[in-house]
């Protein structure tokens, strides 16, 4: 019962935080600099690791499906499988998992330490709402960088698959055949669905990170606990949401 209360309390405060943040949207022109800063810190800085990870996910996917499809004589469908898997599922999911590990942990640590060291209290006495000053720039920035990161990840993953198909001897599917198969069944709708997933995941991750950070109480030890809680909660949330969004979009 105690845990259930904590879950609902957390959920309620996250919704309230999002409401407060977006209620201060009219002041958005004033925070453009902070939004751009967040796009750079959270988005641009995550790009290299997204690229590396996506490349190898695409490569492994091509390798695994190559081995399996070979048995059925359906090697020419590797492109379709890699393409669809990355667009509809693995692209948004892997970028979100990276975001949870890299950006959510850093965000929670920063906000939790601001809370513990009374910087958030200082903002409140200055009548600067933390939701506007700390949360809104992060949420707005996320709306910009999340689809870009996801799209970049998907495309690099496709190329990872193409290179494996081209150069791993026993697969023997050339790039032209691979991309033909990939584009044959690919539609804008599928890409759009993947990007919607990424946006929802990204929004939830950043909201959870900010909410967990701002709810931190106690001393420096709590900062570490808050970071762990934030990452775990983000991962659980995106996996649960993944099921429901996939079902809704199907």
């Amino acid at each position, binding site marked *: 019962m105690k845990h259930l209360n904590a879950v609902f309390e957390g959920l309620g405060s996250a919704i309230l935080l999002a409401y407060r943040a977006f209620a201060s949207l009219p002041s958005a022109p004033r925070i453009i600099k902070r939004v751009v800063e967040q796009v750079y810190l959270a988005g641009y800085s995550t790009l290299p690791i997204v690229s590396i990870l996506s490349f190898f996910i695409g490569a492994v996917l091509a390798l695994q499906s190559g081995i399996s499809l070979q048995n059925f004589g359906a090697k020419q469908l590797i492109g379709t499988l890699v393409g669809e898997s990355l667009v509809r599922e693995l692209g948004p999911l892997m970028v979100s998992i990276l975001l949870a590990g890299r950006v959510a942990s850093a965000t929670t640590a920063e906000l939790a330490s601001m809370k513990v060291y009374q910087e958030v*209290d200082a903002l*409140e006495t200055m009548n600067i709402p933390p939701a506007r000053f700390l949360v809104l720039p992060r949420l707005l920035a996320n709306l910009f960088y999340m689809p870009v990161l996801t799209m970049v990840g998907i495309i690099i993953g496709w190329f990872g698959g193409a290179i494996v198909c081209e150069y791993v001897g026993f697969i023997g599917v050339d790039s032209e055949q691979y991309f033909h198969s990939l584009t044959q069944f690919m539609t804008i709708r599928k890409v759009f669905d993947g990007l919607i997933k990424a946006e929802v995941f990204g929004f939830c991750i950043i909201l959870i990170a900010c909410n967990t950070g701002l709810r931190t109480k106690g001393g420096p030890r709590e900062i570490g606990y808050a970071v762990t809680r934030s990452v775990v909660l983000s991962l659980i949330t995106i996996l649960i949401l993944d099921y429901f969004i996939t079902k809704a979009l199907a």
Partner: protein
Amino acid sequence: MKKPNPPLERSDRNPVSVEVANLSKNYGSQKVLKDVSLTVKPGEIFVIMGPSGSGKSVLLRQIAGLESPTSGTARINGYDPSLPETRDRFALALVFQAGALFNSLSVYDNLALYPLEHQLCEKHEIRDRVMHALKILSLENAAKKFPSELSGGMKKRVAIARALVMEPQLMLYDEPTSELDPVMSATITEIIATLKQEHQVTTIVVSHDRDLALTIADRIAILMKGVLRTVATPAELRNVTDPDIVDFLNPKIDLKNPRYLKLEV
């Protein structure tokens, strides 16, 4: 860009009064403040003293509106301090014990944040205001530094400068001289007294620094175990007979009968 808010008229910037009425604060089963009532007159320096753990900082947080009392009220000119409208109406500045400077911002940006966020004036005026505050606190050379590069004393001075930029009507200080050497303590004490004289700002100082209190306070409140024991002028406090207060203000070191053996957990 949004038109800057017009600056408040001087008449709107009169020092404010603070009324605390029957205020109690509990954390779970722990009663930290018990039925505290006091009034701070406009423009006075009011020092809240008491031993560590007596609830001084908690009382200050209720006055600043950072926490809600369990029962009773704290009011600034009759308004609830936790409401953003009250903070819009009366500029309230709190100097935190550890400074609470924004670590990701330079000293200049820390000071400029309030007028920038509230669009109080044009950027060149903000720069003038910030540089003026830095000059008062002898911090002109620290403008580009980050809080992590400052000493404890400098952080406190920056925190005071940041409060000064707000042109507050109510200044709250939480242990402004703690962890400082005697010279820096005296400097901070002088700054508090000068700011009050020059800017006619109502000032509440939470401290267990007896020298600070007896030197600059108009009135002193003694808080012990969450109970307000007395409110008196420094002169009246020198003649007080309450043994607990006498012991707090003039503790005698008795090695034959050490007090640490009698401390409550």
